[in-house]
């Protein structure tokens, strides 16, 4: 993959160890990765734009993941960017909240990376296909 073709992924996650692993994994899979360990910092990074996909933890210092997701999804400029909530909580309430705040996927952290990667690829493809439809206009 040419470096200019690389997709940009933002991970907002306060667990440094998990963040490091995710970053290595995604880079090995051919993505360009930026990270933030704090909610507000992550949100302002997201707002600067240039990301093709955002991976969010729920419990974050500064600003929690639900809030970040909602703010992005309610903003015309960013709502098209797929957001994956990757969390260690899996109660029914959490999944419901994730859906309510407009997240495109809800994945529990212990899930195998291949599955996570599969979701990422699917969400990115989905986005590309809508972009294609817009092209002829």
């Amino acid at each position, binding site marked *: 993959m040419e470096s200019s073709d690389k997709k940009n992924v933002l991970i907002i996650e306060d667990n440094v160890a998990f963040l490091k692993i995710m970053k290595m*994994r995604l880079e090995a899979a051919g993505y360009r990765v930026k990270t933030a360990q704090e909610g507000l910092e992550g949100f302002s990074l997201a707002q600067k734009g240039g990301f093709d996909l955002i991976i969010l933890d729920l419990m974050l210092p500064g600003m929690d993941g639900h809030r970040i997701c909602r703010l992005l999804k309610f903003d015309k400029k960013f709502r098209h960017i797929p957001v994956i909530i990757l*969390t260690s909580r899996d109660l029914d309430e959490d999944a419901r909240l994730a859906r309510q705040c407009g997240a495109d996927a809800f994945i529990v*952290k212990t899930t195998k990376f291949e599955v996570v990667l599969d979701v990422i690829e699917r969400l990115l493809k989905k986005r590309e296909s809508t972009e294609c439809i817009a092209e002829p206009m």
Partner: protein
Amino acid sequence: MKILIAEDDDISRRMLEASLVKKGYDVVTTSDGKQAWEVMRKDDAPKMAILDWMMPGMDGVEVCRKVRAKKKRSYTYIIMLTAKGSSDDIAEALNAGSDDYIRKPFSAKELHARINVGRRILDLQNRLEKTVKRLREYDKLKSDFLSMVSHELRTPIAVMRGGVSLCLDGIAGEINETQREILKDTLDNIDRLGRLVTDLLDVSKIEAGKVIMRRDSHDICKIVRKIHSSYLHEAEEKGIKLVSDLPKKEVKAYVDGDKVTQIFTNLVSNALRYTKEGGTVTIKVEDKEEEILCSVSDTGVGISKENIPKLFSKFEQFGRVEGPGYKGTGLGLTIAKGLVERHGGKIWVDSEVGKGTTFWFTLKKVEYPKILIVDDEQNMIDIIEKFLKEGDYRFIRSGDGIGAVELARNESPSLIVLDMMLPGMNGYEVIGRLKQDMRTKDIPIIITSAYEVDEDRLKSTNGNAAIPVLKKPVEPEDLQYKVKELLSVETK
């Protein structure tokens, strides 16, 4: 303690008052029923009331009925004062909700004895309320604990899993064969720990009654086929034959698909674990009239009679020798049982040592939910039905408000999709009527409206609770999602 005396006869009222004041009670008096009700309806009303039966305006029995009809935070002990004395009269007073009665003319001794009975009961009531409150707090603590455990245990597991599998995949550099083996064993154990946490959480959720059912239309055969293919590899590796014995026709049922999958998964993985090479594991589904009968049989080691009763308890593995492959958590059957029961079914086992084991369970066939669609435009009703068609619901329809209220009363639908602009009775009035009627007040409602909805007015009709509103034109996904969400909230 504060006591209300409602008695229209002046002499009798004064005697009562004097007698109670002498004993140190805080007394409120009134001479008619309406006033008595005004006092009793308040939140800080006296805990005890002595009501004369015959009063102008509103009689004691009616006050009593009104007090009982109002859901109050705390209990009011009511003593009916009556000159009537036949057993029919007494029965009427008690049936209206009074706790005791005193016949006129009364003696002070009897009056105080009866008040003391009331105080004992109020005291018990009070203790009960406190206990309930405490239990609610514990319940909340348990939920908080659950989500804490789910988070605090999973995070380190996720990190360990991520790190080890990353090394195994060679992303952190080349590893040699010995290292690979060690890491693989480590990963297996991390996964075992992960399963244990998941299972523990599931058991806790079942025990706390926090399993939310998301019923939907499913073909049980399709679920089994999926499980069959996901276990085929493991079975082949162990040299076990995996067989699915399914009816030719699909077996549709209104169940929680994920939970039914989990039941089968737990039983099949158990069966595979206790069956030796050359054995067979069979999954069977039969469509009976009122229920679906499912079974998972193996030709494994079997379970002795003494151990069968212990089978569904937590952490019981009673020394059955497991084959190679992953270890169980000892919670699978407990979870399966909880989930079967949540579906209104039963689970049981037949087993013979040395020959094999069959686990049977039933899934009760539940009627598909009935949805009442109210809209004055026929094509709008058609559209909504079309949007919801996939979910296998039954539909009833009404083009106006009065008809809708009538249908809701007679047909008790599971859900109402209500347009606000209706001829005759508008949406707000329909909701008002529905919420006032015991038969219809708990039916969830989804509002569809082309115009802004007056949220405050809505809330006031619904005891301050919000009602979901979908703006027209309604998006099919929003509607399907809302409908599923509202139908999934089942009583425990």
